């Protein structure tokens, strides 16, 4: 027993001599120190992450006069929630003075189909790529991924032309098509890796049972995809909700998303800036994705886990 051999009490025990049990090293204290370290790190990290939020919230509760004084970290001397009200329903961007709320339902209308369709298509693509493997399919996927590296803005002009030819420009279906196109690389990647982690035997068995491409997909794969779908949904909701440039160009005036209002509130070159309203508007706009994280936080983590198990 070389491992324990040096321990005196061990030797005596081996020799059959009864000895009073002696506690080995206490571990409770060591663990306490480690715990303190863990919490210290997490709290420090949380502070780092929260500092900008703190400044945003504090700024949104100050008057412009106070902000101009420049005490970034100071709490507001006179609390005011006026900026929040203004941001939501009163601030002017051009002729209309309805705040950022005007685009809320438009954003919802865009987000819902722009989450459902990309996920479905990503699932079909991922399924096709991972099970009906061919060399050509791998190349297609590689190109699709490369597509994700081109700044999307460069593609706007030809896409405007194409959508106009299809009579989809400046319409709700048009903007959804755009989101489908630009989300495809990532969604396909997500589903491909997820399906690749499922045992191939499952699929082979289904083929032997005589299932066709769609039958296997609909009856076997789709029901097993719930976790990764939730992951995809969360990424899509965040991406589409925060999208600005596509919504602006492709959605048409009637369907402009909330972020267009948000940018109108915040961005200006030569106009004056109401920082307090800007901060309130930003926080208000981010509430929907935040709510999605909050509600689905558990699935988010569990879902991705399901996709990442395999080596």
């Amino acid at each position, binding site marked *: 027993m070389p491992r324990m051999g040096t321990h005196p009490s061990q030797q005596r025990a081996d020799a059959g001599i009864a000895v009073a049990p002696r506690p080995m090293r206490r571990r409770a204290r060591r663990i306490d120190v480690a715990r303190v370290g863990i919490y210290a790190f997490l709290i420090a990290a949380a502070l780092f992450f929260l500092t900008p939020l703190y400044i945003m919230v504090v700024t949104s509760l100050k008057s412009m006069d106070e902000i101009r004084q420049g005490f970034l970290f100071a709490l507001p001397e006179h609390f005011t929630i006026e900026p929040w009200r203004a941001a939501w329903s009163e601030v002017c961007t051009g002729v209309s003075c309805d705040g950022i709320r005007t685009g809320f339902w438009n954003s919802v209308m865009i987000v819902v189909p722009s989450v459902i369709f990309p996920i479905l298509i990503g699932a079909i693509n991922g399924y096709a790529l991972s099970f009906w493997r061919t060399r050509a399919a791998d190349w297609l996927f590689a190109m699709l991924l490369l597509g994700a590296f081109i700044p999307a803005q460069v593609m706007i002009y030809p896409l405007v032309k194409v959508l106009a030819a299809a009579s989809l420009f400046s319409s709700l279906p048009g903007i959804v098509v755009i989101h489908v196109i630009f989300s495809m690389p990532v969604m396909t990647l997500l589903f491909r890796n997820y399906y690749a982690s499922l045992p191939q035997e499952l699929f082979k068995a289904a083929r032997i049972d005589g299932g066709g491409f769609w039958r296997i997909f609909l009856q076997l794969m789709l029901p097993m995809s719930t976790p990764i779908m939730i992951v995809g949904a969360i990424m899509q909701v965040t991406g589409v909700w925060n999208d600005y440039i596509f919504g602006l160009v492709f959605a048409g005036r009637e369907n402009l998303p909330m972020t267009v209002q948000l940018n*109108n509130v915040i961005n*200006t*070159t*030569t106009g004056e800036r109401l920082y307090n309203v800007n901060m309130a508007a930003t926080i208000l706009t981010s509430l929907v994705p935040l709510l999605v994280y909050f509600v689905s936080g558990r699935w988010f983590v569990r879902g991705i886990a399901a996709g990442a198990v395999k080596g």
Partner: protein
Amino acid sequence: MKTFSLVASTLALALATQANAQSTAAPFKAEVIHWWTSGGESAAVKTLADGYRASGGVWVDNAVALGEQARSVAINRIVGGNPPTAAQFNTSKQFLDLVEQGMLNPIDEVAAREGWEKFLPETVLNVIRVKGHYYAAPVNIHMPAWIWYSKAAFKKAGITAEPKTMDELFVALDKLRAAGLVPLAHGGQSWQDNIVFTAVLINVGGRELYLKILRDRDAKAIQSDAFKNVLTTYKRLQGYVDKGSPGRNWNDATAMLITGKAGVQFMGDWAKGEFSQAGQTAGKDFGCIPGFGANSPYVIQGDVFVFPKTKDPAAIKAQLAIAGVITAPATQVAFNIKKGSIPIRTDVDASKMDVCAQQGLAIMKDKSRHLGNGEIYLSPDQNGALSDILTAYWNRNVPVEKVQKDIASALKQR
């Protein structure tokens, strides 16, 4: 203010509906893309909308923040076959490509009826008139190179008189520094660096050199000592900014004047909006200097509306109506008071305008003092390249000769 505009717009709306009821034709529905999204700008564009509604039209507002983005939306809408009725551009070559592609409707009818040739500054006319046709309706004239100063800061630094020359300005800056204040409030963003450059070019280089460099892109002038002097003066000013300057928004720089922490800022006349937001008035709390000397030029930067090609007679009617409304004297005064700029015509009642604007209008009466800004003479591409060089020079220690060389080669392009 808010209630007033609300009442006004309701009134205008009521008038418009009445007008519609009377006329059998469909209302002139006009969708207008512009980038006036901030508070003061919103108030200004409302006067345009009100004016248009009063004339019987329906104004469909499409505000998109930031000029680049608003213009890009307009262009994409034209390309996509769903053009707006009118779209804002700068008084510049930005829409020249659109004209050349035949994508804009001319508004010669309005120009002839109103006699634009008679009262519009030549500089503006040269931009909106392409091959004898008018393609844009101007709205305003901004002067980007004003010199603002905080009276409180000047008082604290013991500066009694407004600087009259560049040298006096430097003396003042030194005094401000000695008093522990930030001498020059500046936002280190390339377009703001560009504004400082413009101010130095007109005040140190003068009108002739300005035109030679920016209009004629004259290589000899670029290599001249006079221009070298302009560049070194520009760089010298950089020594008066505080450490926090890079990246700062112009509003934050202006706030430094408002709070008396800094003395001087080079900025366009829109800065008045920020002062008035803080309850300060020109001549009392802050001063404005359009330029040094009796003949200092007035740089014109402005906004126009262009009218994308359409065959729909109602839309064409709407386009012509807008062009007429926005250039009418009453709309001009109302709009420019809110916007902080000055009217495109000098034949208006300026009594309601502020001291600085009145000063500007007075200068504009002298045609020999008109100058366009860089955008008017240079293509967007050239202008961008120039601004890249200037901002690099401002921030980095580069030999002035290299800067001259770089500018010469940047302006050679097309």
